[in-house]
Structure formats: C-alpha cells, structure tokens
C-alpha cells in the first residue's frame, strides 16, 4: 500500500508529468471547447420542457339525447347501456384514436366506500373504446394518497389491465406549465401532457360529497390532471374548475353514481355514509351531467358553485327541465 502511494506521488511530482505552459493552455482550450458540446446536449432537453400546450378542442358530435341516465344492478351493464343511449362509443372514439379515461383514483379506499370510481364502470368504458377502434386507452390519476395503494386498493388498476387498457402512474416530468387565457383564475398551472394531447377525453368521476365544493362531480374530477401544489386550487375553487373544464373540454362525461358518498367526502371511510343508487349518468355536456347528479343528493344544482360558474363560462346549460334526458332501467 505504502509503495503504491509512493509510486503515485513520485509519478505526480516527477519532471515528466509536470505540464509546460503550452500544455496547460492547451488543456484549458480543450475544456473550454467542450462547453458548446455540453450545451448542445442539455439545451434541447430543457427546451423540451417549455413545450406549449393549447386548449383541447372538443370533437363536435351529435348524440341521441343530451343526457342518458341508466339504472340497474350491474355497473358494467348500465355503463354500456348509457353509452348506447347516447348513440354508441363510435361517436366519441374513432379508429386509431388515443383515448384518455380519467377516473377518480385519488384515495386509498376500497370500491365499497365510494371514494373512487367504480372499477367496473372504468373497465367497461375501456372495452367500449377498444371496440370502437381506439389505438390506445390511457387511464391515470394524480392521486392524493400514495399512488401504488390507490391504484391497487381501488381495484381500478386490475380492472383496466384486464380490459387491455394502459394504466400508468403519473410521470412528474409530464406536468407542463400551461398559460390560461387572460382573466382566468388559474393563470398558469402545470397540467398532465397526456390529458391535453389526446384525441378523445372521457371524464369518469364518482359523485361524492365535498365540504368545500358541495359535491365533487365531473368538473372537480379534472383536478386529477393538475400537478403543482394542488391545495392552492381550493382558493376560488369554482372559477378555477370552470377554467380547467374549459381548457380540457372533455368529449364525454360519464358520472359513476352506482354508490354515492353522502357525508364526510371526498374520502369517506364509513359505509353508513354510502348510498347505493345504482345509476350511471352520461352526456357530452359536463355542466348538465353535474347538475342532474346533484339532484340525486337532493341538492339544488344552482347551489353548487362549479355548476353555476360552468354555465356562466358557457360550458353548457345546467337546465335539467329543458334538456332531453333519456332514463332507462336495466
């Protein structure tokens, strides 16, 4: 060991290894010239993160009715029936489409507690999308609890995998800061790339109680594509949700009201707070779907801030009595 060090020190101090001025300058020149190389390698990657996202365009589709409300014992069957009543999935998903299905997988709770979207509803939608020729169906949510536990215990990861969909955990580098139009409450917020860059966006929330929003419905469900410090969205929530919905423009909204959470939302945890209503509500107008779902809770839709704000923003009418609603029991 000693000899080893001696050899090294001898080598380092020997005349041979000492650099002349010329060598020194040459070394500096070489190291300086490497700067452009490093820059060339790193800058494109940095520029990539500055990717600009534009508001999503909704595909204009005619549906057979404004809203389909289907009741029945099997979550899968009523979901299928509701889509059928609108005119079939092929109106929303074309061949070769990249489809995003955004359920609520926010919480580490089993399906019975009505904190997450019913896995059967999600799986059925995935299957319907593939039947209509979708290239790939992506399912994800930026969870509130640990993602692995949420994905597993909600039963959604398994159900989606079985139906052939691509379930993925969110990748933090895919949250891209989005500038909202002037005057919007959100101003700038990181949104998930996949949610904005897709051919078809299907929003699949579960209807739940929420002490701030009143109810958490389809508009609130879109918080799951937001990154950043999401708690801040809660300040002036209704306006921000309307902004978000306007930006994402979901092509189809399917609200899972098979089990609804009446109190202690959005997490619940007490089976006494869960009401089994066995209903699925589907439509292209998110405001109308939310408004109808509010009536299941015996709440006047006008009292839900986000619905009011959504109507004001022109996202759709919340007037249930004027809408063409198809009610089916299976």
């Amino acid at each position: 060991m000693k000899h080893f060090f001696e050899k090294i020190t001898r080598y380092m101090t020997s005349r041979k290894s000492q650099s002349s001025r010329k060598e020194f300058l040459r070394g500096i020149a070489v190291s300086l010239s490497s700067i452009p190389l490093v820059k060339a390698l790193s800058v494109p990657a940095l520029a990539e993160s500055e990717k600009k996202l534009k508001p999503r365009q909704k595909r204009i589709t005619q549906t057979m009715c404004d809203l389909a409300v289907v009741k029945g014992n099997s979550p899968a069957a009523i979901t299928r029936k509701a889509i059928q009543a609108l005119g079939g999935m092929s109106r929303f998903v074309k061949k070769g489409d990249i489809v995003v299905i955004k359920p609520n997988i926010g919480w580490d709770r089993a399906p019975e507690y009505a904190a997450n979207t019913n896995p059967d509803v999600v799986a059925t939608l995935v299957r319907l999308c593939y039947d209509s020729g979708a290239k790939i169906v992506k399912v994800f949510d930026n969870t509130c609890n640990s993602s692995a536990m949420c994905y597993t215990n909600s039963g959604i990861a398994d159900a989606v995998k079985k139906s052939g969909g691509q379930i993925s955990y969110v990748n933090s580098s895919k949250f891209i800061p989005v500038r909202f139009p002037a005057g919007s409450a959100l101003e700038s917020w990181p949104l998930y790339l996949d949610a904005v860059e897709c051919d078809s966006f299907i929003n699949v929330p579960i209807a739940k109680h929420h002490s701030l929003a009143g109810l958490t419905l389809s508009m609130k469900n879109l918080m799951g594509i937001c990154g950043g410090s999401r708690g801040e969205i809660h300040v002036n929530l209704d306006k921000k949700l309307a902004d978000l919905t306007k930006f994402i423009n979901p092509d189809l909204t399917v609200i899972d009201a098979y089990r609804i959470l009446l109190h202690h939302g959005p997490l619940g945890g007490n089976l006494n707070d869960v009401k089994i209503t066995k209903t699925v509500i589907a439509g292209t107008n998110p405001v109308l779907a939310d408004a109808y779902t509010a009536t299941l809770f015996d709440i006047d839709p006008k009292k839900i801030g986000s619905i009011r704000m959504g109507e004001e923003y022109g996202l759709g009418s919340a007037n249930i009595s004027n809408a063409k609603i198809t009610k089916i029991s299976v």
Partner: protein
Amino acid sequence: MIAKHLLLIRRLVQTLSVFILVFIIWNTRYPLSGFINPEFYFLIDPFAMFITAVAERVFLPGLIYSALLLVITFAIGRAFCGWICPLGALLDFLSWSQQSVMKLFRKKTMEHDPLSLRHIKYAILAGVFIFALFGIQLAWFLDPITIFVRTFSFNVHPFITGVIDGGFMRLLKITDYPIWLESMYNTLREGFLSLSTPKFFHTGIILVVLAVIMMLSLVKRRFWCRYLCPLGATLALTAKGTFFQRDAGGCKKNCGVCMNLCRMNAIRSDNSYIREECILCLDCVVLCPNDKTSFFFKKLWGSEQHTGGQSKHPGSEQNIWVRANPVFSRAQFILMLHGLILTSLGATAPRHTRNKPQRPGTESNLRPPGALPEEEFVQRCIRCGNCMKVCPTNVLQPSSIGKGLGGTWSPVLDTRRGYCEYQCNLCGKVCPTDAIRELTIKHKQQFKIGLGVFNKKICLPYAKGENCIVCEEHCPVPDKAIKIRTSMVRGKLIKLPYVDTDLCIGCAICELKCPTAPDKGIVVIKVRDA
C-alpha cells in the same frame, strides 16, 4: 475434488448472501410480499439481538435465532464471518480487486505475526455491553449487518433508482414519449423502481462510516473484522472453544504462504493459529503449496497425546494434533462463566435511565405509529432503516445527529416530505427489534402519532378570510378529525376548520397538503402520553 473448488464455492455463497440481502432490502416496500422477511438478517445477528435485549430487559424472538447461530459458531467456528456476513463479503471483494490491481505493481501484501490490535474488538464489545447494562443500546452504530443495510437503504438504493428513473425520464422527454418506451418505463417502475425516488436527508455520514470501513480494508484486509467488529468479537468468544480446527501439523517448511494468505491474520509464523480469529475462508487449505493444511473435528474430551511431531503414525496427517490443549482452558471457562453471570444480571437489573426527564429537542419528534414510548424507543431501535425503506410516502426520515446524539438516525416523521398513510402498517411489520410494534390496520388507525394544531395566523380561512378546507378534504378519519364551522370572517361567510382532538391521529396529511408556504396553517405536534 471438492477441495479444489472450495474457494469458488465460498465466493459463490458470499455473493449469494449479499444478493439475497440486497434483494430483501430492495423489496422492503409496498406491497410487502409474504416470502420476504426484512428482519431475517437481523434476527440471526446475536450482537444486535443480545445487546438490545439486555439494554431493554426484554425477550426478543431474535434471541432464539441468533442463539442458533452461536451454536453453529461453537460447532464449526466463525463461518458466518467468512461465508455469510454481507459486510465481510464486500470487504473481501474490495481486497480481491485491490490485489488484482496490486499485481500490476508486483507488490504482495505481507503479514506479520497476529497483532494484539485484535483485542480492540473485545474492548468495543465490552464497552457496548456495559452501556447496555445501564440501559443504553449502542449496537445500532457498530453492528455490521446494520451498517450494510442502512447504507444500502439510505445511500445506494436512492442513488440507483434515482439514476435509472432520471435517465428514463430524460430519454422519454427527448424521444417524445413513444408508447413502447413508456409502457416499459411503467412496468419497470411498478416492479423494480420506486414510484417516486426516495430521498433521505442527513445521510451522508452513514455513507462515510461504510467508506471508512472500506478504506481501512485497503490498509489491511478485513481490517474491520480483525480489529473492530463487535459481532465478530461475539462470535469469536463463542468460537474460542470450537472443535472444528485447522491442522497444519505435518508442515515443517514454514514457507509462510498461508500466513500471508490469511485475511484475518490468524496464522502465526510457527504455523499455529488463533482459533477464534479463523473465519474458515479455507484459503490456507486450498492454496497450500504442500497440501499440508486441513480442518478436522477434534474430540471434545479424551486424551490428546499426539502433539507436534511426536506422532505414532508420522505419515498420516489425520492423527497429528496441532496443540494438546483441551478445548477450554480453566481461565477461559471462568471468563465464560463470568460473562454468563453478567448477562443474566444485566437482564434482570433495574434500569437507571428510565423516567429521566426528556430533553426538549427530542420531544417534538413524531415517531412512527406503534412506536414504543420515546425513551424505550430510542434504546430499542437499531437504526437498520427498514421502516424508512418500506414507508410508501417517504415520511419516515433518519433523525439527524444535530437533534440529539441519542436519537441519531432513528426514524422520525418529516411532515413536510410526506404523511402517514392511513391504511398502511408496514413499518411495524419490518422492525426487527419491535421498537415499532406490529399493529393491525384497525389498531394503527387509532394510534395517535401526534395532534394537529391550527396556526390561525397562517391558516387561510382564519388569516385571510378565504375558503380552503384542503386539510378537511384529505383527513382520512372516517368521521373527519378536522371539522368545519361556518362563521363570518371579514364580512364573508367562511368555512373555518378546527381539530377534533379525540379523533385526530396525527397522520399529518393535513400539514403536508396545506397550501400555505413556507409555514403551514396546521402542524402536527407530539403530545406526550399523560
């Protein structure tokens, strides 16, 4: 035939042992599969188990397993050190690569007669033991298995996952997220990497400890094992009387090959050896140029007249004994008896450190759910890092040295990094010394880690008069430990949150998700048990 391959077999066993341990540590995460027992390597570690048991005056199940290891060591010697110990394997690998490099310089390591430095490890063991008698457990700092596991959990694993994860993210970004690469990344994240790269703070020093041990092994092979390791000392004390012994009686050449080979420096220049220092690496057997060295089971009792060269059958090596001493000398026997009496005394003696007033610094630290009361917890915890490794939210962090030397590297909840997951009880499941008791999910959901307290100068509804309620939204208690009352603030009807102290379990998700920065509108504090 086998003899020729013994070294290869030993190296394979060592590699396998390291791989098994690394596999175990790597998979100490949610969901903990049934066949992996993260406690295994600690349960067979007599040093950690006995010292903890003595310091805490408790019976640990690990005592039985580790006693088994002691029995094996008594029978065949310190094979654990030479064949199983992951730290030893690491040091062996290091010396082996060092020697491969040294060959280029035509330099051979030279050994002298065994140094009395080797007694340091007994002094360390005795010191730790005496502290344990007074209720202070220091095994956490010096136990080789813990050192290995801790460094891997805190330094190596986050580094590896971080590099792979970051590389994939970069690659995905540059290639604009092709579907096949994304699904590959997803699968990798699910099965191999952590979903988010764990980060542990103040852990540089943990790496330094291992680095120093590794550096020392460059000076002398297995420096740690020869001179310092208290687990080695524990096993050496047991191996003193082993009857599986080296025999080189037939060798008259004194060529010194085996002496220089011995990584433990256990062979004297007169070809005799120190029994308890031998770790059965079998270098001297396999690499002996004269094939004179071998190991035999020696008779425990009975006459041993065959000494040195005065053999009845000069040709046959089996009958030549190296030394005529009986297995135990009288002095050794008395020493062992002495140790036994001390141990049993220690286990029953009253503890002096109990009920001492707590230092203010340690009081504010939140402990994992199921943790013993603070004073006991600090002594019981061996800082193996299992709980912090398994924690799905990365909330468990090693306490820094600055927060009080006694609690160094023990797990605390860093509520700015994470929170305690409501339906998770993994930390209790992986604790080898039960410093964190294993709770059922139901019990865990009622275990009070701390208590949430609103800071009304910061909390948005109180301070700014704006609706927020993020804390109430995230509160996992079914009936919500954060309740709401509506009241007028600055002329507006605002939902004001307050804590139901009976329901709050202090999981701290409210503190983590609270949108105010840098100070939080709600903080979780530790409430001492009444």
